[in-house]
Structure formats: C-alpha cells, structure tokens
C-alpha cells in the first residue's frame, strides 16, 4: 500500500515541468534564505500565488522546494558575512563566520551544506514514517480534543513567540477574531461586518498572511533611510569553492552531533509555534553542553556548524508532520502550506493521509527530492548570492511590494484582497513595533474556524462541558496548554523562587494522569515513565535540600 502510494506520488511529480519548478523553487528559496531580513515564511507566502494555477501536487512540491531551499540559504549569509540570513541560522554564525574568517570559508560552507542535507534527509525519513502513525492517533480525536489541541497550539505559540506571554495571547485572540469577520461557516449569518457588504465574505486568509508577514517586514526593513540605501553586503567579490569531501569527513567524525541535532529539530518542529529559530539555538546549546571541548565553541569548530544547520533543516519535517497528520501547523511556514492546501480544497486533518495518500506522499517525496536538489544547487547559488547582495534594500522592498500587489490580486481576482493586504500590512507593522509577536496571530487566523467548527460539533453532541476535562486527549491538551502558558513565568523566576522547584515535577504528574486514562500498554508505560521522571526530579531536588540554582549555574 505504502509502495503504491509512493509510486503514484513519484508518477505525479516525475514530469519535466514539475522538476523544473522544484529546481526554481529550491534556487529561489536558497537566495531568499540568504538575504538578511527576508524570511523563509515570506518566500513561501510569496510563492503561493504562483501555485494557484497548478495541480495541487505540483503547487505544493514547488512550495516545499522553496521551503527546503530557504532553510539552507541562511547559512550562506551567516558564514560568509556573519549576518544570519534567517533567524533559523543565527547559531550558524557563531562558528561558521569565525571558521570562514580563519581562511576556511569553503570548509565552513561545505559542513553547513552537508549538515543541512543530512538533517533534511533524517527529517524526511521520519516525516514519511511517523506522519501516518501520528495521523492514526489523530483519528481518535473527538471535537473536544480538537478544540483543546487548537487552544494548546495557540498558548504554546504565544509563550514561545515573544518575551511577553500576554502580548502573545492578545495577538492569538486578535487572529481568532479576524477569522470571525464575515459569514459564519456553520449557519451563514453575517458577523462583525459593521454593515459593509464587502466584509461579508470575510478577509482572505492569504492576503492577511502576506500583509501581516511580508508587507510589514518590508516596511520594517526600509524604516531607516540610510540602511535602506545600503547594499545587503558590502563585499563585491567572493571566490569560494565548497569543500565537499573535507566537509563529509568532518561530519562523519561528529555523526552523534548530527543525529542528536536532527532529532532536536524534528521534535521542535512537531511542537506548534516552535520553529527553526528555536531549534538551531537549542541544538547548538546541546552540542556545546555534551562536547568534550565546550570552550572551543565560538572559535570556528565543525560541531558548531553541524548542530544548528542539521537541526534547522530537520524542523520542517516535524512541522509538516503535525500539519499533515493533525491539521495543526507547527510553525508559520507550515501555516502557509496549510493555506495552500485549503486553496486547493484539501483540508488537512487526521484522515488527510488516508483520504489523499497520493497528495500526502507527493509532499513527502518533494521534501526528500528538494533536499537533494538543494545540495546540487548550493554551489551555483553561491555565485547568484554574491550578485543579489549588491542590490540595495529599498529596491528589493519596492519590487517585492509590487509582487505582493499582483500576487494577492491573483488569488481571487478581487480588489478587496489588495485592501486587506494594505490594512493588515499596517496592522502587522504596528504590532511588530509594539512588540506583539505575529506568529500567534497567524495561527489564530489559520485555526480560528477549526476551533469554532469543533466547538459547534461539541455543542451539537451535548451541551455538557465536562468532556473538555474528562476526555483523556482533551485533558492532556488542556494540561500542557496551562503549563506552556505558565512556562514564561516559570522561566523568569527559575532559580529565584521556591515554587519553580515544583513546576516540572507537577507538570509531569499532571500530564501522566490523562496518559493513564487513555489505557493500553504503550500509553500506560509512557504515563509511568513521565510520572517516574517527575518523581525522580522531585527526589533530586529534595535531596539537595530544595536549594535554588540560578539559571546557568553548574
């Protein structure tokens, strides 16, 4: 069955047109990822209008290619200029730039490229094998569970996306509210339209996304007139040859770092809201902590490049896994992918892989193939990157704004979408300025109707609210939502207040309760393990006399 699906997906993608589009996508992603200030999400969002006219598999393969290219593009800027192209490659600069400055830019790039490749392949394999299993678990979900899953996705995104949890939650609520404008999906009644006819159809999701993300980011980039007139990089020449063989040898020496960082990336990607920007730092930190020479980190050592680059490429496999198996995007780029599926009338849900196996496997295969393409195109794109860095920021911003205008109109051929783009561009710009994270808002826009539809289903079955706390999955998501909401407060007081000593053990005990309620041997064993870990942590803290350890202290 799986083989049949894989063969059907390969047949779907194995056309010259699709392969060419994927190559263009990877190349475009590599360049977009390499440009500081131009995020991967922006590149994927801007690709979306081009894919409307394509068959779903082809359009999604193109978008996946941009995504894979973008994930690897950041390393070029990070290693050669010291300025990370994307937030996902911040940690790459810690060792990549010093290595390049020490006269080994080719080796640094090689390690980055091959780490990205291996991270992507590990992630693709896990995506293909685990997503169908996760979808099987998702089939157990009832509307109460789904509703709580959305609430969990929003709270964890809010708690991870910014410094201020309340601002993150406000952004999420605003996103949910934006989705309620217009006719409601259940009974078709006009809501929050203030008597304006054009608002009856609601705001187009893609126009909102492009406005919030791309438009506002570009305005932010050109705010400073001096910086806007500068080239992206002052370096006019860069003669670097990627040292592939030496890089593979270095990676082979540190394969443990590669595997661990890739797994960190996949796991981070599965968590809603936690994307590559968190994974690369987390993987770098873990690599440093477990290294025999932690003092060398930051001076230009291979492990310092392997860890962030393998993890940031592995993230998307995890994010796509949650999106395809549960219909919940793991990060903003996955939210855009979800939007692309919706545009093609495909609604991701636990039954998506079972009902649309060819499309699902096309995404898996595209992810896999695009990773290979990235490897081949990286050397070529390095030359283009040098050319692109000579463009001034204001020129790039003006051209992309023009693209946004035409692209958004192409979605529905409706002028209102362009006004939506403008108003949400302004809103996004103001929100960015006042420190409101945009990721929870985008997730709110994406998940708003899923939450409402499931709430309506719950109410249609029974008006009793108890299933929200008595159904194991709903309770599980509620508990982790509460603890993830409290996480920023815990982090702020860690090592200063006594109660923080109990936070992790209590979270483990609480999470084990619904796991026990689920029954079955594997889940009971998992529940026991979680409970035991909580008990062990508590015992450890008790034996140390409930002493507070400030963060960072040994």
């Amino acid at each position: 069955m799986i083989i049949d699906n894989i063969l059907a997906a390969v047949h779907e993608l194995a056309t010259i047109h699709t392969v060419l589009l994927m190559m263009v996508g990877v190349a475009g992603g590599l360049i977009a990822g390499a440009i500081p200030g131009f995020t991967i999400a922006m590149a994927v969002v801007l690709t979306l209008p081009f894919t409307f006219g394509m068959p779903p598999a082809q359009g999604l393969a193109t978008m996946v290619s941009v995504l894979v290219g973008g994930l690897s593009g950041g390393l070029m800027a990070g290693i050669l200029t010291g300025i990370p192209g994307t937030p996902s490659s911040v940690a790459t600069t810690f060792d990549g730039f010093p290595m390049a400055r020490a006269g080994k830019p080719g080796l640094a790039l090689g390690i980055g490229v091959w780490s990205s490749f291996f991270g992507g392949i590990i992630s693709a394999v896990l995506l293909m094998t685990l997503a169908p299993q996760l979808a099987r678990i998702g089939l157990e979900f009832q509307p109460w569970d789904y509703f709580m899953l959305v609430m969990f996705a929003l709270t964890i995104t809010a708690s991870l996306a910014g410094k201020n949890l309340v601002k993150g939650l406000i952004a999420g609520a605003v996103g949910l509210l934006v989705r309620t404008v217009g006719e409601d999906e259940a009974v078709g009644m006009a809501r929050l339209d203030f008597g304006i006819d054009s608002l009856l159809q609601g705001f187009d999701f893609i126009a909102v996304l492009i406005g919030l993300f791309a438009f506002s980011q570009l305005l932010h980039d050109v705010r400073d007139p001096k910086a806007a007139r500068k080239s992206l990089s002052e370096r006019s020449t860069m003669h670097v040859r990627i040292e592939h063989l030496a890089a593979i040898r270095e990676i082979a020496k540190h394969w443990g770092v590669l595997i661990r960082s890739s797994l960190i990336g996949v796991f981070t990607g599965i968590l809603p809201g936690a994307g590559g920007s968190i994974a690369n730092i987390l993987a770098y930190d873990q690599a440093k902590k477990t290294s025999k020479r932690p003092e060398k980190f930051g001076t230009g050592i291979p492990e310092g490049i392997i860890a962030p680059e393998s993890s940031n490429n592995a993230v998307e496999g995890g994010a796509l896994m949650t999106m395809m198996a549960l219909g919940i995007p793991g990060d903003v780029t996955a939210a855009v992918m979800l939007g692309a599926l919706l545009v093609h009338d495909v609604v991701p849900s636990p039954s998506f892989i079972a009902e649309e196996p060819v499309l699902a496997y096309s995404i898996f295969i595209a992810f896999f193939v695009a990773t290979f393409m990235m490897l081949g195109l990286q050397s070529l794109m390095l030359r283009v990157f040098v050319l692109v860095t000579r463009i001034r920021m204001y020129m790039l911003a003006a051209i992309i704004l023009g693209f946004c205008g035409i692209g958004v109109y192409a979605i529905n051929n409706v002028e209102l979408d362009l006004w939506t783009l403008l108003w949400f561009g302004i809103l996004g710009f103001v929100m960015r300025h006042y420190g409101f994270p945009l990721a929870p808002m985008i997730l709110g826009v994406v998940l708003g109707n899923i939450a409402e539809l499931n709430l309506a289903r719950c109410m249609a079955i029974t008006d009793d609210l108890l299933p929200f706390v008595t159904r194991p999955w709903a309770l599980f998501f509620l508990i982790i939502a509460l603890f993830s909401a409290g996480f920023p407060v815990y982090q702020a007081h860690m090592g200063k207040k006594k109660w923080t000593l109990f936070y992790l053990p209590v979270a483990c005990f609480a999470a084990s309760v619904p796991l026990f309620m689920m029954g079955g041997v594997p889940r009971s064993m998992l529940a026991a393990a979680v409970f035991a870990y909580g008990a062990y942590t508590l015992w450890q803290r008790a034996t140390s006399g409930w002493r507070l350890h400030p963060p960072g202290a040994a």
Partner: protein
Amino acid sequence: MRRLNQDAVIAILLLVASGILFWSTFSIRVPDYGVLSPSTWPRIIILSLSVLSIIYLLQSLKESESESNAGQSVADRPPGFAGWVVYWKNPIICFSLFFLFLLTLPILGSLIGGVLFVFSLMSALGGLAPRDIALHAMMALITIGGMWTIFTYGLGVILPTGVIFSPF
C-alpha cells in the same frame, strides 16, 4: 499623576475596541436552527481579549515609564510631530504609494499601475539622481513586466487591465 506609558495606551485602546466589538455582536442575527449561536464564538474571543487587555493594562501600570518595553528603541527620533514624520518617513511613503496604487488600479491597471508604483517607490526611497531614475525605471519595467507576463500568459490569471490601456 504619572503619564500613561505606551503599553497602557494600547491596552486601553484594546479594551475600547473589545467593547465596540462586543456591542456589535448583539446585531448578529440568531437563526432558529443550529446549536451554537453565531455570536457565541466571537463573544468568547472578545471576552478573552478583554481579560487579557486588563491584565496587560495592569502589567503596564505596574511598570514605570522608564521600564516600559513597548515599541522598539526610538531614541534617535527627533522630537515633535515633524520628528515623528521624519522618523517614519519611509514606511509612510510605502503606505501612501501603495494606497495610491490601489486607488488608481481600476484606471491604470496592474501593469502600468504596478510599474509606476515600483518606480515611484524606488525613487522616493532611493533618490532622484538621473542615473538612479534610469535604473529604477528599468528595474520596475523588467520585474513587474515579467511578473505580469508570468501571471497573464503563464498562469492564465486575468489581472486588472484598467481603462487607459485596455488592449493589454
């Protein structure tokens, strides 16, 4: 009385907006069918938003004005309204030109309107030296023209033609 910091002002604005939106939910028609009233979900969100805004307001009132973390650093901003305009000049130009582009779209169409928008934005942000103007015109023509061609002929999307050059 201490001056309100930016966070507090935003929180108050959010509360006012929540109030208006909550009031507007009473004009949502409730049909005889369906279990969940169309106004229930927006009300849940608005109430949550109000509670969060109150917490945000209390948080911001607790912080002294100097500790306020609202907004990014604007230390280099000249004082007064003129200073504000100078500081935000580029975003204001972008918004205004995009606004003009949208207003003139039914007349100029996406090709001419798009080229003019990109050209004027580049010139407004990058300077009006003759060499720059030529470069901006060329880049606007190539990029928007290329994009227009891809959408019109490659993807079969009908973009606004406008009334001036409808043969396009």
